[in-house]
Each structure stands twice: as structure tokens, then as C-alpha cells.
């Protein structure tokens, strides 16, 4: 069991800056994020897209912003628990007992939810009967590519994941690449490579098709795909891979006894605490009158939520307001050398 002052859920820009604010006031925190890397939507959805509304930074990309925030919180040596998700939250006197999907346990008087619009999960096939095969012959991510050797693989999708895996797996498997339209949105070099491999007969490309049905008793035996014109084509296949990007799901948060307004968590604007004492929500996931889903709003919300955590973490102390320019204790926490 890891004991900490604050558990932060979400390693997007809001969560990262909140880590900074917690560090400045001398609170320890641990961060959990479902993605395998730090940065949240900034890294997952728009690493290369410029952002123009970060105060005092005229232009930066999602990746640059993330890297700068990581640099800014470096003095606090925060632990990140990536590719993990908080599943269970239970009250124990003045603490919360937090359990993750990987089985980690935390004990903390405070939880700050900076979860964006929830956790990212792969978008699945919508066809009935798919559930039965998911995790076995229908996959949305690949852990062990050796299972595909000499098999027939149907890959669905038009982005980089679909193209990259089509190229990779075509070396030792029969690959069919199926996409709902003629254009692929992956990088041009990958598109060219796939078309080259098609000419060489190593990949079969089927466009304007979507999955229509899956058949098989214990294992998938064949699938049918439907063309835009309504015609249906049956194909034999051993594995079906779907790469349709990620969707955001609120996930287990709905079970924690929090008030919800559609997919958002109402908070007060004094310290961004929810209806549950010691649980705070900041960034895109929180809502209050006038809420703006901007990164800069998330920064402000994190600064106030961090102060809100202080009273639960140090009930016998009083928090003094200090500036980073002049405070000696803040300089010590930041490791500033004089």
C-alpha cells in the first residue's frame, strides 16, 4: 500500500501542472494514467498540432507543452503509474483506499480527478457476435505478433496503426486491409508502402467495405464485409484486427458516489471539491457555471484544488500563501540553488 498526500488521476496538462502546485506547497502525490505515456489528450490526440492559447507561450505543440510540464515538475520526483487505471475508491475514516486495475493500492486523504473526458479505450467493432471473440481472435491491440505467423489476418482501419501493422504482418502472414473509404489517413509513406505491397501481392486492399458479420463456433472461421453499394463479400480469416482509434470513457468513475452532470463532475469553484469530501475534479472533466474547456482553466483549477487538499493532508497546519519568487521554503522544494 502506497501512502501519499494526494492521488492524481490523469497525466494530461491539467494533472501535470497540479502536481507542480502540490509540490510547491509541500504535498506529496502519485499519478495514475490509463495511457502508456505522460501527456493525456495533448500526446494522444494532437502531439503535432500547435496550441495558441497558453498564457505567455505564443505557440507550442501538444508534445512541447507536455515536455515543458514534465521539466517543470522534475524537482518533485513524482511517481507515475502508467498503463494503469483506478478502478475502486473506498472511504476509510479520513482516507481513501484506492485500487488500480493492475492491483496497486494507495491510501490518501485526497484524490484529484484530472481525467479529461475519461480514460482512453480502443473503439470496438459494432457488429453483433464480436464480443464472443474479443481478446482471442478479434483484437484491438497487439501484444504478441508471433501468433499471426502463417495465418490469415483481416485488418480494419485507415490510420497509422492499421497501415503499420498491415506492413509488419504482411511479412509472415496473409493480410487483408479493409477500410470504409478509398483514402487512408495514415502518413503518406505508409500509404505508399501498403500500395507497393499490394502490387507485389503481399497485401490485399479492400476499400469501401465495413465489417458485416462474424461466424465461427469456438474460433472465428469467416467474416463477411459489406460494400457501400450493399454487396456482401465473405472472407475466410483467422484473426480480425480493428484499429479505429481511441474513445474516451468515463469508466469506473461513475461508481465512486460522485454527482454527475452528463459526463462531467460538478464541483465548487472555491477549491474544486466534488460532493465527496477529499475528492476533487479539475480540467475537462469538471463542470461549474461558466466552465471553459481550456488548458489554462485546468491550470487555475489545479492550483486551487492543490490548496484544497492541504487541509485534509495537514489538518493541524495552516497553509501560508507564498510566492515562488521570494519564498525560501518553495525554493528548497524546487531545489533552487542560490
Amino acid at each position, binding site marked *: 500500500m502506497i501512502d501519499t498526500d494526494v492521488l492524481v488521476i490523469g497525466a494530461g496538462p491539467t494533472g501535470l501542472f497540479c502536481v507542480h502546485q502540490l509540490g510547491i506547497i509541500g504535498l506529496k502525490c502519485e499519478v495514475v494514467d490509463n495511457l502508456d505515456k505522460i501527456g493525456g*489528450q495533448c500526446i494522444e*490526440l*494532437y502531439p503535432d498540432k500547435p496550441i495558441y492559447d497558453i498564457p505567455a507561450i505564443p505557440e507550442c505543440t501538444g508534445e512541447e507543452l507536455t515536455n515543458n510540464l514534465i521539466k517543470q515538475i522534475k524537482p518533485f520526483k513524482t511517481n507515475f503509474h502508467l498503463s494503469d487505471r483506478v478502478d475502486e475508491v473506498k472511504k476509510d475514516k479520513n482516507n481513501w483506499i484506492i485500487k488500480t486495475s493492475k492491483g496497486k493500492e494507495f491510501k490518501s486523504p485526497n484524490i484529484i480527478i484530472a481525467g479529461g*473526458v475519461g480514460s482512453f479505450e480502443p*473503439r470496438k467493432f*459494432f457488429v453483433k457476435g464480436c464480443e464472443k471473440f474479443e481478446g482471442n481472435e478479434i483484437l484491438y491491440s497487439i501484444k504478441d505478433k508471433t501468433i499471426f505467423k502463417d495465418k490469415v489476418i483481416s485488418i480494419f*482501419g*485507415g*490510420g497509422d496503426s492499421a497501415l503499420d501493422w498491415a506492413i509488419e504482418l504482411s511479412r509472415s502472414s496473409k493480410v487483408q486491409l479493409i*477500410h*470504409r*473509404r478509398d*483514402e487512408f*489517413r495514415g502518413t503518406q509513406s505508409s500509404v505508399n508502402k501498403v500500395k507497393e505491397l499490394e502490387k507485389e501481392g503481399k497485401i490485399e486492399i479492400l476499400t469501401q467495405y*465495413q465489417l458485416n458479420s462474424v461466424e465461427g463456433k469456438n474460433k472465428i472461421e469467416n467474416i463477411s464485409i459489406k460494400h*457501400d453499394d450493399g454487396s456482401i463479400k465473405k472472407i475466410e480469416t483467422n484473426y480480425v484486427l480493428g484499429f*479505429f*482509434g481511441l*474513445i*474516451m*470513457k468515463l469508466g469506473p468513475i461513475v461508481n465512486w458516489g460522485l454527482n454527475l452532470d452528463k*459526463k462531467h463532475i460538478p464541483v465548487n469553484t472555491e477549491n474544486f471539491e466534488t460532493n465527496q469530501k477529499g475528492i476533487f475534479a479539475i480540467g475537462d472533466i469538471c463542470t461549474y457555471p461558466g466552465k471553459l*474547456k481550456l488548458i489554462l482553466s485546468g491550470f487555475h483549477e489545479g492550483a486551487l484544488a492543490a490548496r484544497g487538499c492541504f487541509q485534509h493532508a495537514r489538518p493541524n497546519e495552516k497553509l501560508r500563501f507564498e510566492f515562488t519568487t521570494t519564498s525560501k521554503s518553495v525554493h528548497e522544494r524546487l531545489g533552487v540553488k542560490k
Partner: protein
Amino acid sequence: MPKITYIAHTGKAHTIDVPNGLTVMEGAVQNDITGIDADCGGSMACATCHVYVKEEWFDKLKKKEDGEEDMLDMAYKPNKFSRLSCQLIVSDELEGLVVNLPEKQT
């Protein structure tokens, strides 16, 4: 104020007066039309405001910008009349627009 009709997957239709300048998505969200989630708030970063535009209206709409088609790849059961309703800005020309809502958004 243009009237926009949203037809739910169940067939139930809601006709709403939507002020010019709002998007078809905002018209739905502000009037509590269920079936349009709009998780990203209208920034074309998700595909949860997906609608099927009624055939006779489809060609009258402003063409898709770069990026919309990419996002539609991730929508639930897209077809050739699919649009993201956050990209459809209401104006007098859209008086009477009809959109069908998908069975679900994710």
C-alpha cells in the same frame, strides 16, 4: 430562426428552432436532445456528434473540411451521408434541415 429536425434512432422526431450561428450539435445539446454526446465540445476531436444528413440535404451543406472525414472513420456506423454535427453551422439556408441520429455515438 431556422427549424432543424432531429430524428432519433427510434424514429421520434424533434423539431427545434436553432439560432443562426450555432452548430447543429449545439442546437441539440442546448435543447437536451439525447443521442448527440459531443464529448470534445465541438472541436472536431472526437466523433460523438455524428449524424446522418437526410439525402436531399447532403449536397446543400458546406463541404467537409480536412479532418472531419478522418474523425468519421471513428464514428459508430458511418455511411455516405455521415457528418459531424459540430461542423454544420446553422444559417437561413438550413431552414428545414433534417438529420437522423445514429443508434449510439460510441
